[in-house]
């Protein structure tokens, strides 16, 4: 073997060692970068994902807490029951109506209020403080307030006001339960939307608006071609967060109508709660939970793709 070959071999060996040590450093560097993330990630996985796996397990079993001996593997029969359960379909529809109704109405009102607040006037900060208050009131308190103080058929303030115009008393929570729940929810979520849109309005670059005015654009033109596109991601974020929280609405339904009359105003969270904690039907409740999650994932991934695009998350 010639010395030059040995030299080459030595060289390539050294290069390999160098590459290996670089790999080790980059691996160590990778772990250094990952380490701060891991506690949060592991905690979230354990607390949110494991229970869901257990939910899937329960959904395949027939288990009723009232009959402790009975715990059988029943395959997909819980799911078949759901497919035939007209109450499930109705509560699913209620969920959609309540969520979309609340988020859309609250967003439109929120935009109007934000535009009204985004101009100087006497007592503006007091008016804003008053407008954000409904979002801060405990939802349980909101429910009590609306169902009893405002919408009660005998002494509720709402019917008293309508009475001034000669309209007869209405038992809101039993005649129009979903409308009653929507009133309370819209009241609570409008300030949230208003604050988001207001943040968007105040983040508008002033020079662009001035330039538009100098170019002779009228207020309507400025609103449609500059303000609205700028507000878009704030509106999307508001709708996304609103849907996440409103779809899980439980307090108002539990306290204002108890899902009634019958199941007329129950949404999915309330119906599943009933099956699990009043019917003690663990298997059924779990299967419904799984169906809801699958439906939510489908809707949510579409929504998230939207929001990710507008946030332009960089790798």
């Amino acid at each position, binding site marked *: 073997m010639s010395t030059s070959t040995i030299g080459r071999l030595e060289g390539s060996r050294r290069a390999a060692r160098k590459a290996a040590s670089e790999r080790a450093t980059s691996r160590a560097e990778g772990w250094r970068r990952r380490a701060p993330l891991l506690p949060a990630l592991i905690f979230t996985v354990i607390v949110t994902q494991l229970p869901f796996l257990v939910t899937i397990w329960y959904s395949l079993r027939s288990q009723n807490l009232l009959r402790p001996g009975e715990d059988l593997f029943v395959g997909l029969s819980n799911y078949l029951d759901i497919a035939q359960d007209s109450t499930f379909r109705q509560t699913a529809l209620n969920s959609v109506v309540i969520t979309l109704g609340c988020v859309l109405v609250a967003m439109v009102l929120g935009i109007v209020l934000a535009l009204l607040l985004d101009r100087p006037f006497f007592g503006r900060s007091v008016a804003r403080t008053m407008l954000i208050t409904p979002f801060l009131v405990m939802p349980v308190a909101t429910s009590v307030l609306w169902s009893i103080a405002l919408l009660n058929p005998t002494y509720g303030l709402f019917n008293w006001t309508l009475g001034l115009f000669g309209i007869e008393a209405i038992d809101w929570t039993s005649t129009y339960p979903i409308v009653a729940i929507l009133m309370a929810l819209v009241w609570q979520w409008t300030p949230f939307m208003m604050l988001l849109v207001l943040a968007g309005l105040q983040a508008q670059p002033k020079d662009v608006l001035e330039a538009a005015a100098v170019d002779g654009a009228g207020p309507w033109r400025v609103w449609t071609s500059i303000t609205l596109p700028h507000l878009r991601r704030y509106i999307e974020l508001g709708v996304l967060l609103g849907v996440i929280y409103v779809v899980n609405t439980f307090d108002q339904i539990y306290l204002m109508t108890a899902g009634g009359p019958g199941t007329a105003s129950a949404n999915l969270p309330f119906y599943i709660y009933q099956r699990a904690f009043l019917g003690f039907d663990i298997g059924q409740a779990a299967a419904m939970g799984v169906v809801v999650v699958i439906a939510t994932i489908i809707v949510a991934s579409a929504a998230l793709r939207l929001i990710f695009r507008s*946030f332009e998350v960089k790798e």
Partner: protein
Amino acid sequence: MSDVTRAYRRRAGGGVLTTLTWLLALAFFFPVAWMAATAFKQESQAASDPPTWFFTPTLDQFRAVLEGGSMVYVGNSVIATGVSTVLVLLLGIPAAYALSIRPVEKVSDVLFFFISTKMLPVVAVIVPIYVVAGQLRVLDNIWTLVVLYTAMNLPIAVWMMRSFFLEVPGEVLEAASVDGAGLMRTLRSVLIPMVAPGIAATALICVIFAWNEFFFALNLTASQAATVPVLIVSTMTSEGLFLARLSAAALLASLPVIIAGWVAQKQLVRGLSMGAIK
């Protein structure tokens, strides 16, 4: 149209808009004001038809609420809210750091994972949580709520704090690393002071959601670990409809968050928009 008339018209239009804004503000605030007023009434005045507008305020209802052993509930709420918020920050700040300043690979996957846990409906996991907590004998235990509230708020907090961290200029952090500061040191003496308002905003949002949470508290607590929302509901059902007392309880329960929100309006807005304001 002369400039004078135009200015006059604009002022008149502004006057209409201002009046409209005030009317809407009063309309939105009115239910809260009515609840506050009812809390100072006697029961007979609270549920009267027609409504009682003028009355001599009394503190009887507040006294009744505070005498009924409600401090246990308040203590539980303070622990669940306070400890879970501190845990969210302890877990969330390093995570937000790892997703912004010196990012790990696949940042958007991790962010997607965090926010997707918020998409998971709470009801879908309540059954196993209830059964497992029963087997571990931690039902009606305030620390169970602490853990759940931490998990409930962590994803949103990571998103918020990440966006605040992204606003920190890179040069500042480079300077710190040139000076030989390690991770903890950089976090403690450079980064955290700079993003303190953002962290405050995040904490405020976590406090609001934890303080107001009802579903977990209703299903996982009984007499020992019940929180303030549960107290209100039990007041409502166990004693019939004592509207004035209920209003006093609801007002007291809502007051901490209302005041915090009023004081920290700017932080609230920044928090809600997930730091999207530049």
